[in-house]
């Protein structure tokens, strides 16, 4: 019995880096409408999306900066959530990941950004002041730097 408890406890412990909660549209909105840091970055990805996984470590690196909050929002279907968790842990992602809890993609896409046609990867950058920059394509380190610079200057 004790061994079993220990085993379960260990299991929980091992799962910590992959801990991902569900987030509905209201919760998602609060991430970018009430930003608690200078810059909030919200990246929309999925386990089936190659370019998303490629840019993930680069984004995660920015999330480690003190003035930046970074959230990954997985658009994976429920059936693929374990696959997504494996990718997060394989890539050593430290930033918080959420699984989107909204079945209607049209509603989700329009609520986040009017100009978003639905392609992923897509990333929303929000400044504390409310200024937003939305990017619907893959990003590299240099592009992210430029976007953050544009977001934080001329306030």
């Amino acid at each position: 019995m004790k061994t079993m408890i220990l085993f379960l406890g260990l299991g929980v412990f091992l799962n910590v880096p992959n801990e991902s909660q569900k987030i509905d549209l209201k919760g998602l909105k609060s991430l970018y409408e009430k930003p608690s840091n200078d810059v909030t970055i919200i990246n929309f990805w999925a386990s089936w999306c190659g370019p998303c996984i490629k840019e993930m470590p680069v984004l995660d690196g920015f999330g480690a900066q003190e003035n930046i909050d970074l959230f990954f929002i997985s658009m994976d279907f429920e059936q693929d959530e374990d696959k997504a968790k494996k990718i997060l842990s394989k890539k050593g992602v430290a930033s918080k990941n959420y699984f989107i809890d909204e079945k209607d993609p049209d509603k989700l896409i329009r609520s986040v950004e009017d100009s978003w046609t639905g392609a992923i990867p897509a990333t929303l950058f929000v400044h504390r002041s409310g200024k937003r920059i939305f990017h619907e394509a893959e990003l590299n380190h240099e592009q992210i730097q430029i976007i953050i610079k544009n977001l934080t200057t001329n306030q």
Partner: protein
Amino acid sequence: MKNTFLTVTGVLVVVVLLFVNAMDSEQNSGKEVGDIAVDFNLKNVDDNMVSLSSKSSAKGYILVFTCNTCPYAKMYEQRIIDLDKKYSGKGYSVIAINPNDVNKQPGDSFEEMKKRYKEKGYSFPYLRDETQETTMAYGASKTPHVYVLNKEDAGKFRIEYIGAIDDSPREAADVQERYVEEAVDALLAGEKPKITGKRAIGCTIKWKEA
């Protein structure tokens, strides 16, 4: 003196007009529902060229920007084949266009497209948009991305629906709303589609490096 002034003013007006035009075209990138569809002349996997006017009996088309490689496009592949089976006899056949840059996505090469076409038994043209000009003209941004076109009297095609095929990408069995079918059914009944656009998640089109 007066002439110089007029010339300078004239040049300025032209410059401003050009500038405004440039801004406009940037904002209106792509087509919207209600716009006249742009015709094209693209190479099919059977090496023949295909355009909107190729099929004189067409009442319209289900134009799908799709590819071999995107997992989302693969989820919809059978449903695209089924759309053609259901509607080609009624005058609305599928035309599939693969826009992806082969350098970025070798799995979308013309040879790979030919293989896929044979393997899956596509009953509709599968065209390669080598220059990506057609894809840009439509404003397609992802695969799959559907445009339902309806032929009008003057032989022009009007865009009547843009967006998702249905509301359940992962499980075809869970589909509740068949947006493209509803749009085509409406056109067949001589009506306008009730829903003219639904956005879906998809893979970014692999654009050529500028």
